[in-house]
């Protein structure tokens, strides 16, 4: 028994946040957001793991023969993965338009909205 996966998830989340806050390129920032999101996958799946467990798929295994890991968190993570990809795509589309309209993707140079 150990708790290592949980701090790792927290670390990934905070690292992604650091990258987001200090990014000088909006595409890089969107990539950092994807890193933040991978923290949620790690946390969810770590929560559902069971020692010595096996995947809850019965195509080649008799029900009840072995302990199973939690299928619910896996379904949640699956949803989460797809959500992540779509959000990334949408944000990248916005970054492309920013590059066209502002001529830069450096957040430090975007000065239109303030005050």
């Amino acid at each position, binding site marked *: *028994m*150990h*708790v*290592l*996966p*949980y*701090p790792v998830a*927290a670390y990934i*989340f*905070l690292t992604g*946040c*650091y990258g987001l*806050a*200090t990014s000088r390129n909006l595409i890089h920032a969107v990539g950092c957001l994807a890193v933040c999101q991978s923290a949620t996958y790690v946390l969810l799946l*770590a*929560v*559902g*793991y*069971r*020692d*010595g*467990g096996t*995947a*809850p*798929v*019965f*195509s080649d295994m008799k*029900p009840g023969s072995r*302990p*199973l*890991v*939690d*299928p*619910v*968190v*896996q*379904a*949640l993570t*699956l*949803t989460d*993965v*797809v*959500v992540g990809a*779509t*959000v990334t*795509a*949408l944000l*990248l*589309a*916005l970054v*492309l*338009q920013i590059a*066209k309209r502002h001529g830069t993707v450096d957040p430090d140079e975007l000065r239109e909205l303030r005050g």
Partner: protein
Amino acid sequence: MNRLRLWLLAVGGAGLAALLVAACLDLPGFGGSRHPYGDRAVRAALSRHTANTIASVNFDQRAYDTLGEMSILFAAVLGCVVLLREARDEHRARPEPADVARPVRRYALLVLPVALVTGLYVIAHGQLSPGGGFQGGVVAATALHLLYLGADYHALERVRPLGVYETTDALAVSSYLVLGAAGILAGTAFLANTLLPYGTFNTLSSGGTVPLLNAAIGMEVASAVVVLLAHFLDQAVEIEEEHGRGTP
């Protein structure tokens, strides 16, 4: 770099880190054996003859979540189509055929059918083995884009009539919703898996409506990803701004 931002980041990051570490110490140990919802989900999946419990959770027990997720994908594709439309000051330029090395081309053309079939296989066996509509859909859609590597952009555009894919995307979403509403018409509940017989355990037609919903998702994901990639490719290869008249 802005000094204030670094201070804020340090304070906020340290605070949140302390909170999360404290929480981690209170979490049940990794690999624990208490999963009440998970155990119930396994029993429910078996009672409905679905061999892959995850498919059962996704398309039966929590099919309503999947409806939301599918809508997110649908909305994001619609959003990307709108956001990446040709602006007033843009036009399309014919890209020159890219020079692709012959081995790469051969490899791509060889892998393409294999990948497509794999994608379809993964979709079809969603309720039995690991995989399903999402995974297979993404694989199939990405595989189609190997054509860009293997042949060239024009070949890709010919096998990829975008309008058809957009319509397929929307129709797949509609069919998921209609399947859900059928539950209400049949007098049970929205997205209830009570319309079809549950079939023989561990066969392709087992699980009631699970294979149907799975197929709808597969169709939706595949066409959505094709449309997404197509619009990004268009941006990267075809669409130009008026003032950038030079060829790429």
